[in-house]
């Protein structure tokens, strides 16, 4: 049994309680949620959730089928089964005395990340990318001292015209 991370895109009615229906389903059936993002979709009245979950093929099949049983779920797509773009944004508040700033800026630049706020002894780094890139950024900033970390979770889309 191969446990893999999968990104699933779920198109849902923008109704009160819909997030509870979806997350409740994952909870009670023992499906795991690594991250979940929700926002507007291309169509008025519909939202798109992107859920990253772990499981073997059988679990993934059950997740898709169980999601389809929810009346508010319109469409479920397993993004990981196709070439996709997956992106996450992280804000990292890192300790930085003025003397350390240039060094940190150097790291940030290499990652094509950005500094979006500078305080007297900290700054906020914003990084966008796939999960690996963000993990690497965090690892590199760790030695300076991370005060606060906030990640959005992955949102994703299939490449090309599909």
């Amino acid at each position: 049994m191969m446990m893999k991370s999968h990104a699933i895109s779920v198109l849902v009615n923008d109704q009160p309680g819909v997030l509870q229906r979806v997350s409740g389903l994952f909870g009670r059936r023992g499906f795991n949620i690594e991250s979940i993002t929700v926002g507007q979709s291309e169509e008025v009245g519909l939202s798109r959730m992107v859920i990253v979950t772990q499981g073997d093929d059988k679990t993934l099949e059950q997740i898709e089928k169980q999601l389809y049983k929810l009346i508010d779920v319109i469409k479920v797509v397993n993004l990981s089964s196709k070439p996709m773009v997956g992106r996450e944004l992280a804000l990292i508040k890192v300790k930085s005395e003025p003397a350390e700033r240039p060094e940190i800026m150097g790291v940030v630049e290499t990652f094509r990340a950005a500094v979006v706020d500078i305080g007297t002894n900290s700054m906020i780094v914003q990084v966008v990318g796939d999960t690996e890139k963000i993990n690497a950024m965090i690892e590199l900033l760790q030695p300076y001292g991370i005060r606060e970390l906030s990640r959005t979770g992955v949102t994703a889309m299939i490449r090309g015209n599909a």
Partner: protein
Amino acid sequence: MSAHIPEVQSTEQLREKWMKPEVISGSEILLRSLLLEGVECVFGYPGGAVLYIYDALYGFTDFKHLLTRHEQGAIHAADGYARASGKVGVCIATSGPGATNTVTGIATAFMDSVPLVVITGNVVSSLIGTDAFQEADITGITMPITKHSYLVRNVEDLPRIIHEAFHIANTGRKGPVLIDIPKDVSANKTLFEPGQSIKLRGYNPTVVPNRLQLDKLAAAIQEAERPVIIAGGGVVYSGGHEELFEFVTRTEIPVTTTLLGLGAFPSGNELWMGMPGMHGTYTSNQAIQQADLLINIGARFDDRVTGKLNGFAPLAKIVHIDIDPAEIGKNVKADIPIVGDVKTVLEMLNPLVGRSNKADAWRTKVSQWKQDKPWKYIDSDTELKPQWVIELLNDTTSGEAIVTTDVGQHQMWAAQYYRFNQPRSWITSGGLGTMGFGFPAAIGAQMAYPERLVISINGDGGMQMCAQELAICAINNIPVKIVVINNQVLGMVRQWQELIYENRYSHIDLAGSPDFVKLAEAYGVKGLRASNKEDAKQVWQEALDTPGPVLVEFVVRKEENVYPMVTQGSTIDQMLMGDSE
């Protein structure tokens, strides 16, 4: 014999009156919408948050409303009504405790795919979320046990929501739908415009199966040497029993019917093997374990049927026919998955299939098992045996009654020894195993069929979980024959404690239960008792001859166990045959 409930006028007469566009309150919209959905009977209990709804019900006679004595009684009665009739059962309860009292009943219906529309009141919209008096987040509480739920925010949405709720409840894999109506919504007025079409993008059950899969199944039947059919509740719910009969007649494949499938196939037929699983027949379980082709029609491979999953039907190619795609592959991997409505699937399948010609030796073997190892028990001349009581009920009613049960030993004995020949004549809580279900469910079944004989078989434990509904039997003269199989103990728990927990009988003694005959009489229901065969025959006949409700208590042997039995963790061919061997 019919119940003293005012008869409703015909739908045709009233339809015009209800359809009229008028400015009316949410409560009146609710009643009209229910009528337009064809509702003839609702079960309910009033309270603060549904006062407007009950005010609209004042003097209202266009459908029946049965006032139960507990919301749990109301929801189980609605469930029994739905299972007996095939229509949507409707239950009304107030907010907070009224709503939460329906939870067990909603879960019961959800597990057994029974179509219900449950209407709860809620506090006024502006108080929602403030922990107001009798407030409970019932849509949140019931989310895992409803097919769908609604919290109505505007009275304008009510007609659409009710229409959708009935559609969702009674199509696809059926199930309970909850509509939570805040008090202000039931009071507010708007122009009532019925008859919207259903627009649910996220809900489109697959009814018609993939034809290629049917061809594969037809071919597999031709090749099979040891084919077996498991028929489940899906056959009953889809109304596909005649199609199943034709399928079996054409293919001559032996059939086993699950607990919820009893009645889907006539028990007198030579190809019927009984019930599979934990308390199933030797024949069914052996046949499944040795089968080379297992055709599951509308059953969900529940753990009580499969026993130890790893080792279930090890030699079989698995065919799984179900309306719910999520059931296929959930427990048992299907080699030929067929998603569709059972009736539709069988209608399309029947012209494609022929007799399973390679299975003659198998049929001989199965029929030999059936002859050698039927369900049996050792009778007694000194004590009343519960199995004998069920046989008495069966013999005196020619298997024609609607039988409801509670949960436990008596339920299994009823499944084993009552011989069902038609669908919807067997009503039992299979999935959730809800004690207290059987008696109110019988009231619901009787409301659906006032002229039919309805027998409610209970244990002495479960009878005490909804006994208060004796009142509504008496008041409305609902002629249910209430049977209490009294062994003075929680029998199924006792059985497990004896066999698995080494006779450590922990908290199962029900001594001190009320005198059931007097209890019935206290409510104004006739009560009878028997503890030997002669008396049993006599009082049971008296009960059958009595026009109204009767409670009959049969005092039976305490130590009797249900056999055969497959203990948890065993494969289903490892059966304890007990004293039936």
